[in-house]
């Protein structure tokens, strides 16, 4: 590696990392939080068989999972202004990633809810609990524990997915790398450097996920 490249990489380091910390992470975390709320609602109305809302939920999951996230980004950021809804890039990205990830996460939450042994719901009724009490105290805690690894995976893929927001002008880590590259024209090295930073972020998240799983297991209870 030549002296020059080394200099470029050093120069670029913070110019890529800072947008990573300031934009990529908040974008991923915010989207994840909203996605989780959406997913929980969507999974619950399906699990509880709420007429109407259940069909609506299936429809939502069908649409979102059947279309590329890149296209969804374009529709929201470039398309919606045509009908008078103009969003700046960051909120547009948060909305799209939340709605998109929410659809996938709702499926894993739904599966987790279904996998909680059903007899406990009946046992809850028999000791006099209401459906809501049973859901809140018995079923959901178990379902979330079961869903934890897949929720962790969802967050990790979301971190990488946010790079697509570059296409709608959000200056996150990847777009920052593109900008640096437009000065030095060293795509191999600079994009590898960006890749390395994604890798670091995801590695930390993987550690957190393992740690969380251990904590949950130590707490006993469900297999």
């Amino acid at each position: 590696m030549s002296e020059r490249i080394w200099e470029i990489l050093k120069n670029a380091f913070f110019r890529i990392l800072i947008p990573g910390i300031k934009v990529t992470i908040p974008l991923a975390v915010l989207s994840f939080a909203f996605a989780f709320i959406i997913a929980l609602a969507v999974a619950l109305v399906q699990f509880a068989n709420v007429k109407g809302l259940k069909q609506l939920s299936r429809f939502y999951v069908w649409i979102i999972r059947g279309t590329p996230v890149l296209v969804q980004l374009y529709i929201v950021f470039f398309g919606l202004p045509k009908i008078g809804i103009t969003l700046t890039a960051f909120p547009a990205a948060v909305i799209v990633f939340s709605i998109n990830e929410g659809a996938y996460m709702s499926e894993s939450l739904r599966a987790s809810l279904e996998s909680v042994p059903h007899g406990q719901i009946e046992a809850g009724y028999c000791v006099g609990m209401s459906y809501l009490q049973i859901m809140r105290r018995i079923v959901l805690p178990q379902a979330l524990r079961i869903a934890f690894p897949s929720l962790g995976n969802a967050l990790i893929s979301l971190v990488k997915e946010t790079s697509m927001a570059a296409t709608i002008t959000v200056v996150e880590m990847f777009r920052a790398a593109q900008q640096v590259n437009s000065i030095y024209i060293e795509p191999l090295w600079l994009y590898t450097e960006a890749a390395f930073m994604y890798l670091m972020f995801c590695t930390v998240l993987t550690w957190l996920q393992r740690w969380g799983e251990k904590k949950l297991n130590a707490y006993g209870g469900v297999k």
Partner: protein
Amino acid sequence: MLLKVNNIHKSFDGNLVLKGISLEVNKGDVIAILGPSGSGKTTLLRCINFLERADDGELIFDDVKHQLNKISHREISAIRKKTAFVFQNYNLFLNKTVLDNVTEGLIIARKMDKKLAREKAIKALEKVGMADRLDSYPIQLSGGQQQRVAIARALATDPEIIYFDEPTSALDPELIGEVLNVMKDLANDGMTMLVVTHEMNFARNVSNKVIFMDNGQIIEENTSKGFFENPQEERAKAFVQGIIEQRAIKKEGEK
């Protein structure tokens, strides 16, 4: 009279499973419900406790009459607060400790004071010999221990009647005894119990009445003494004989 059901009908997808069942339970009764597999015993208990909705029939509980096919949530929940159910496969809350399994119905469903609930729960757990495992989780217990906790959970709510659906059928043979002993204690204390079981010794020695079901109907209703010593119906006779023979074969096999 504590509980009376009249003419319960229930079908699943056009398959008539209960064909007009009527029975009466007095305070202190221990009634064994016997019958071959598929005769509708579980369905009967589930209809009485509203885990299934019966198509027709009425239920009189504490002198209040309810139409089973149009009973409201409010009525259901009022009756459920006075009854308890013990399942074949325990159905303990897997995310709760032994103690919390028992207090849940008191603190959450009945809004009982936490300290009082804890005392009550410990008393119930002592009764079933599980008070030394308060902080264990269900998966850390044997089947027999789980079932005893389930009985404590039922007991702690001071029910007027406890329904049991084959409480020992999922247990390894060596664990059946500990659960039956607990049930026998309850019977001796005067607890009213409606017990679906294949344990002939329990039916004969602990229960005071026997109901024999086949094919969605009650074939014979008798005192337990009468049923075992002098069954009236051929099918009941054959059934009792069959169970005794099965036992003998199993014992033989274990040797």
